[in-house]
């Protein structure tokens, strides 16, 4: 999926995560800011990158502002932001 416009999903409430996506040419930049960077930074990045991979996102800027979200919340917010920002033609829901 190609990110064609800026989009946002999630909130900054405790246990949630705010994900912002924006278009970019040629590169995929993922920036993660988390209150639990030290303990879970790597895990958060893994989940975000995996979700982006399943949605076939290869270009764009993805900003993740984590406030202690669980993996399932992280996935859901990343998906929502990407879908809001993307050009959806034929979405294969089974891969999500």
């Amino acid at each position, binding site marked *: 999926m190609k990110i064609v416009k*800026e989009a*946002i999903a999630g909130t*900054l*409430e405790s246990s949630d995560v705010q994900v912002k996506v924006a278009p970019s040419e040629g590169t995929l930049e993922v*920036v993660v*800011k988390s209150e639990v960077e030290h303990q879970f930074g790597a895990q958060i990045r893994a989940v975000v990158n995996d979700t982006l991979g399943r949605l076939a996102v290869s270009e764009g800027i993805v900003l993740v502002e984590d406030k202690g979200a669980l993996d399932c919340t992280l996935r859901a917010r990343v998906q929502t932001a990407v879908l809001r920002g993307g050009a959806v033609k034929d979405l294969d829901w089974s891969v999500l």
Partner: protein
Amino acid sequence: MNDEFEFYAIDPAREPSERAEIKAFLAKSGLTYEDGIEIFVLGRQGRRLIACGGLEQNIVKCVATDPLFRGESLSLTIVNEVINLAYERGHSHLFLYTRPNNIAFFAGCGFYSIVEVPGMVTLMENTPIGIRRYCDGLKKLRQPGARIGAAVINANPFTRGHRYLIEQAVAASDWLHLFVVAEDASFFPYRDRFQLIKAGVEGIERLTLHPGSEYMVSRATFSSYFFKEKNVVGDCFTAVDLLIFRDWIAPALGITHRFVGTEPFCRTTNKYNLDMKYWLQADLSAAPPVNVVEIERTAQDARAISASEVRRLLRSGDFDRIGKLVPPTTYELLWSKYRTAADGASADAAA
């Protein structure tokens, strides 16, 4: 807890009674209502106003919560609502000004500090990679040399005086980076000003022309509301603008000198030049100092050439005199786009 709260947005221009209520509510938090605010998000518990947050273009302003309800959640929610509203209105990159003691709170709302004027005001943006990316882009335009100059011009419009200053600055540097003020608060809109500058510096080597950016502070939207003593507003605005230049832009390009013309006609700009020397040269920042070099303006008929003079002549239609002050490219645009019917008659007679 949030189930009992209701959040909605209003246009303050259309809701005078709610606007009055907001004014009183802000006053209790020591904030002054700002007329430029286009939209407000309000939080109510029943009929009681307990939180508000305003938006003027892409600047978040007047965020306040009732002290009785203060705590992470309500304040966070109101800022979140403002951010979402801004997105809907097409503004994803937001700025805000706040007192330094509120930095931690807004950091929790996803804002990141750009610069801080100690004890007075901090400018923040809602992305960790905003100004960093802008500066990464600037780094690609670095030029070698020991004396790297910079100048910021508004050029309202571009005159022979500007050309002279730029030539002087280039002569005194290994390279000159020229920035154009992007704000559309001048008589001539940004597009015209930029085109005239571009045409006007044609042929000058060792020069890079930079279009304006969001990081050149806009005086129009600068928050003044939380300054109890209003006479420090101008100083704070200048400080923020100059600190951004010193802490971010100058290091990215390796700028060692900033050139500015002496300003005989305009007291505000004169003060600005004095402030510039302070904020760029004093030992108050981790970033290296930037030398401020004032260049005497060039004169035509013993009067310094200035854009305000050209605008005055434009109003009176004196195109003969204008021609002496501006290069042909500027004259062309003024003649074709900005003359009035009255000037046409007198100029035809002269031709």
